[in-house]
């Protein structure tokens, strides 16, 4: 009986850890550590549906991965209907950038890095104009999402993504902790404790909003 009671209780704040690669439509070999979209998407729906859960903390330490899966999770986080705070520990590269900015408030630890670079494709690539146009469209979607959810301008983000002077033999920019905040991508440099504090603050604000709305 005691056990049953324990099971029914769920934490008020849930934590989504997005670690390793983002795994989407294509299954990755077992050497890769992944966060799978088939796990994350239903979890987010469950969090939205469960009234006991007041807020979500997203912990990111990812190298990137499937663009569509990353964008799907990002859009779901930004439309969760509950306060979401994200924090980047270690790295939030590539598609980890939209995931980091999808929250209501984002943090980055001082030693974390984020790589901004143009999207890439594995496997068979058909060398036609249309492939390039598709890439361009997908890149625009990501840029649109990041600029919608953060303070960076479209021009500046494009400039960082297409920079050739920053990474050896590659196009893009690596930004570190404080720099991500200066560029306006992330809201604040901080740690776990500060992120939790902010999430609780947002939960309280949310509660007050609902109460005042119900009262009128």
């Amino acid at each position, binding site marked *: 009986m005691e056990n049953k009671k324990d*099971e029914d*209780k*769920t*934490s008020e*704040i*849930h*934590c*989504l850890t997005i670690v390793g690669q983002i795994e989407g439509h294509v299954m990755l*070999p*077992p*050497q890769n550590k992944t966060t799978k979209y088939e*796990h994350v998407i239903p*979890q987010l729906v*469950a*969090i939205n549906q469960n009234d006991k859960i007041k807020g*979500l903390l997203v912990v990111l330490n990812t190298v990137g991965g499937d663009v569509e899966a990353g964008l799907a999770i990002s859009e779901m986080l930004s439309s969760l209907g509950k306060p979401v705070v994200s924090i980047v520990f270690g790295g939030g590269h590539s598609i980890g950038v939209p995931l980091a900015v999808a929250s209501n408030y984002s943090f980055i630890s001082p030693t974390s890095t984020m790589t901004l670079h143009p999207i890439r494709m594995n496997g068979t690539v058909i060398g036609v104009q249309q492939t390039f146009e598709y890439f361009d469209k997908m890149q625009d979607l990501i840029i649109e999402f990041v600029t919608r959810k953060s303070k960076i301008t479209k021009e500046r983000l494009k400039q960082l993504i297409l920079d050739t002077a920053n990474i050896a033999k590659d196009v893009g920019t690596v930004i570190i902790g404080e720099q991500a905040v200066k560029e306006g991508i992330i809201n604040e440099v901080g740690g776990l404790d500060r992120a939790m504090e902010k999430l609780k603050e947002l939960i309280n604000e949310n509660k007050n909003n609902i109460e005042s709305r119900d009262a009128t």
Partner: protein
Amino acid sequence: MSENIGINSMDDAVLKTEEAEYKGQIVQYMKMDDGGNKIVRVISTDPKVYLKKEFQPGKVIKEQIFENK
């Protein structure tokens, strides 16, 4: 060269995990030679679950991992 392939395929076998529901949570586990199941990772957003003893990574479960309700 053939040695290399041998090592790689062995690594893959070692790393192979399966998923099942165990005590109400989705867990990734590894099948061991002696028939036990070793917990690799629990998939949950509830931070409380990670503190439970039965879901600690490395814990070996002797019984069938699927829950019989």
